[in-house]
């Protein structure tokens, strides 16, 4: 597909692969990148040629990145991305036409860049949103260039080919939407009805998952399959608990009881320290962070469940989850998430009973929720 560039000239024959070649990236490295990203999408290796072929043809599609009620944590995650690096992403693969944290232009000139992309590439550009959108007070809780976040979201997300909500705030409102939600914060999907939105919750989102979604979109021309929370199944289809490297210790009844105790030093299960892995769907254990260096459980702290929609208002970080079924690989987020939400919200009596029952043993069928036991 040829496309006009910003000077109006046709860029015939231009492609990401060609550009990488011009910039000294070998074909071999290019294919290596394709393999990595294919693996991140949880696609079989046989798909690598398809991904490579698609990227061969693609021509730096425009991407705009909007920051609303955000902390820039997802932007920072992007800066740590390795496959590809942010340098490759920004210079070679995409045309990042608007991103307040990194762009050179400011003020009116920055605004002009955004308007130009929205107008010239209507329906063709990708939009990434970071941060929640405040609905109260006529939008006065969040403005850029004198315009409310809501107005900007409607304009920019509404005309995008697709919008990727990065992080829990853009996905579901996140921390700002926690009770009592002073500003009426919501996620993009709720604020802009009709927009095509994919959610990549997490605090922050894993940049590898963002890259994988972008490549998926470029390769297949559509967004990947989603669960009922709008999350791609390739990254959120499995429970942390089921992929956790410490799962054998859970099954064996070996738990950390105090921070720094022998079990903690030996890498035993963090369930009793409040780990939310049994109620959280995310690929952290396999994808890990910072080029696979680590992830929370590997570093000795339980999962907090940051990629779940009601995360901020469910349970305190260090209170152990009630009703954890022993085996539940066959469960998906739509079934098990509900069970946990109910459990965390109201079933502290069960929680107490369970503590008494558990005593470092494998859970019995009595302790399982109905959904979990099916």
């Amino acid at each position, binding site marked *: 597909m040829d496309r006009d560039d*910003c000077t109006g000239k046709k*860029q015939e024959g231009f492609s990401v692969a060609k550009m990488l070649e011009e910039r000294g990236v070998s074909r071999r490295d290019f294919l290596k990148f394709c393999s990595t990203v294919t693996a991140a999408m949880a696609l079989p290796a046989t798909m690598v040629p398809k991904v490579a072929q698609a990227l061969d043809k693609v021509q730096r599609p425009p991407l705009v990145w909007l920051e609303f009620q955000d902390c820039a944590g997802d932007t920072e995650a992007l800066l740590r991305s390795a496959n590809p690096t942010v340098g490759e992403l920004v210079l070679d693969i995409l045309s990042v036409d608007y991103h307040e944290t990194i762009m050179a*232009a400011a003020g009116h000139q920055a605004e002009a860049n955004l308007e130009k992309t929205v107008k010239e590439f209507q329906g063709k550009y990708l939009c990434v949103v970071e941060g929640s959108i405040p609905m109260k007070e006529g939008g006065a*809780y969040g403005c850029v260039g*004198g315009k409310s976040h809501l107005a900007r979201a409607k304009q920019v997300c509404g005309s995008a080919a697709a919008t990727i909500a990065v992080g829990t705030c853009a996905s579901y409102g996140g921390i700002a939407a926690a009770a009592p939600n002073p500003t009426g914060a919501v996620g993009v999907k709720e604020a802009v009805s009709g927009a095509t939105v994919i959610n990549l919750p997490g605090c922050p989102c894993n940049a590898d998952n963002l890259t994988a979604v972008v490549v998926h979109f470029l390769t297949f021309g559509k967004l990947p399959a989603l669960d009922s929370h709008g999350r791609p199944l390739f990254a959120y289809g499995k429970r942390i608990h089921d992929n956790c490297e410490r799962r054998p210790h859970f099954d064996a009844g070996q738990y950390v009881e105090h921070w720094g105790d022998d079990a903690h030093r030996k890498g035993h299960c963090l369930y009793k320290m409040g780990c939310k892995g049994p109620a959280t769907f995310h690929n952290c254990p396999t994808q890990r*962070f910072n*080029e696979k260096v680590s992830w929370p459980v590997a570093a000795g702290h339980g999962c907090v469940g940051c990629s779940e929609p009601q995360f901020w208002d469910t349970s305190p970080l260090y209170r152990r989850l009630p009703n954890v079924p022993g085996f539940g690989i066959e469960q998906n987020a739509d079934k098990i998430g509900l069970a946990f939400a109910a459990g965390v919200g109201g079933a502290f009596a069960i929680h107490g009973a369970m503590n008494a029952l558990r005593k470092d043993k494998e859970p019995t069928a009595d302790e399982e929720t109905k959904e979990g036991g099916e």
Partner: protein
Amino acid sequence: MAKIVVDPITRIEGHLRIEAEIEGGTIKDAWSSSTMFRGIEKILKGRDPRDAWYWTQRFCGVCTTVHSIASIRAVEDALKIKIPPNAQLIRNIIIGIQGVQDHVIHFYHLHALDWVDITSALKADPVKTASLAASISDWPNNSATHFKAVQEKLKAFVGTGRLGPFANAYWGHPAYKLPPEANLMATAHYLEALEWQKEVIKIHAILGSKNPHPQTFLVGGMSIPVDPDSQNALNADKLITIKRLLVKAKEFIEKVYIPDLLAVASFYKDWAAIGGGVGNFLSYGEFPDPVTGNLWFPAGAIMNKDITKLIAVDQQKVTEYVDHSWYEYQEGPGKGLHPWKGESEAKYTGPKPPYEFLDTDKKYSWVKAPRYDEAPMEVGPLARILVAYVAGQKESKEAVDMVLGKLGVGPAALFSTLGRTAARGIDALLMARQSLVYLDQLIANIAKGDFRIHANEKWDPKEWPAEASGYGWHEAPRGALGHWIKIKDQKIYNYQAIVPSTWNASPRDAKGQRGPYESALVGTPVAKPDQPLEILRTIHSFDPCLACAVHVTDATGNELVRVKVS
């Protein structure tokens, strides 16, 4: 008189808007406004104080450790918890590398484009660029071949006609002074720093699972276990990786950042007389000794640029005004409240969006106006370095004298836009070196057989008093950060944070005193009002971080005891 608006101020964290009046090519008056509000402290009410670090960490994803540190310190202060030496040393290393990495990203990726014209780099001679680089550093990547490759990449990128994040900036502006070779050198290092930053911050992933937002802080210590005989704990393998990364960090600061800073600064010495600001400086001090608790960077205040006198800091003298901020105090306007007794209820009275201008005579920002002893204070690397310099701290004094000597200027040059930017480099150098000291201390302590990382005695809330209050201070990369907490019945009763960018981005107070950004802009020359590059220079020299600055609402509302300020 022409009034201009710069919104968004880009290359910062958060949402900042500057309105300025310009007359005869100079800024006569300026207003700093933050245009985003979340209200996180209000949300914190009634939650578990042990969770507060995780919530407040989300004030900001750029300075991603600082609120966690201040928060656990505040709770530990309230509950009188003393943490084990390993935990203190791990925190010091986390703080150190956060500051180093943050400053490099600021210099190259957020601030450099105010001084470096990337388009001019296309005209540079790579051979001359290499000799320029060789004259200031023996960094091995500074070869003519490398600079040529960077230039070729840049040409190919520009050749596509789509400049992405570099489109439509102030390229070619008359205020850019660097020769093409210096521009090419800086551009090459912009790209190199992008790679470097994601490497060195892996220290946070090793010690705390990930970055941004490491998940490892605990009230009472840290959650990364220590055990040389376990693959699931901080062992020799991980410690040596941290050492390698810290050395990599230090080398980059010594051989790339500092030489570049000095080279760029030498072309912009006129900026040592611009952007002075309020002239009052506050530092809370940092890096507690694991045994004595003594601070390596001293705490203190300097008033009216008087570097002969260091004032001891008294937390009772911190107050906040809302006369020009979108909040209301019960007793009405004109009063400043201490954070423990602070009250605030968000009340937006600005124009309905979309708007052209804010009503700057009235309320115009979501940032409050903090004051120390009734005075606006600048915080950040410059304040930290000045306080250490005046206190006579050896390492700081040597580093400051080295930089001033190489630039051929006196200490007075520090009170400026350029001084602020130079101080950040000095700060990075000091922290890069000091982090290695803490790593060696950590290794020595582990070698003694001390594997403790957490003080467990008060982990269970049943061990807590019915009521407690405390505060936690931290010298974050951007300056003095304070969290104040009140705990009642094992829950958060009140939580307040006054953060570096609240100090620096402050609007006017009841007396009409300008905040530091506003003061620093007055007198700044603006060659082309439709391309206010000079405003970006001075504002960026503070390294604004606005999501941090705006979140301040007290958790208890009307139940608070009000303090009377006469």
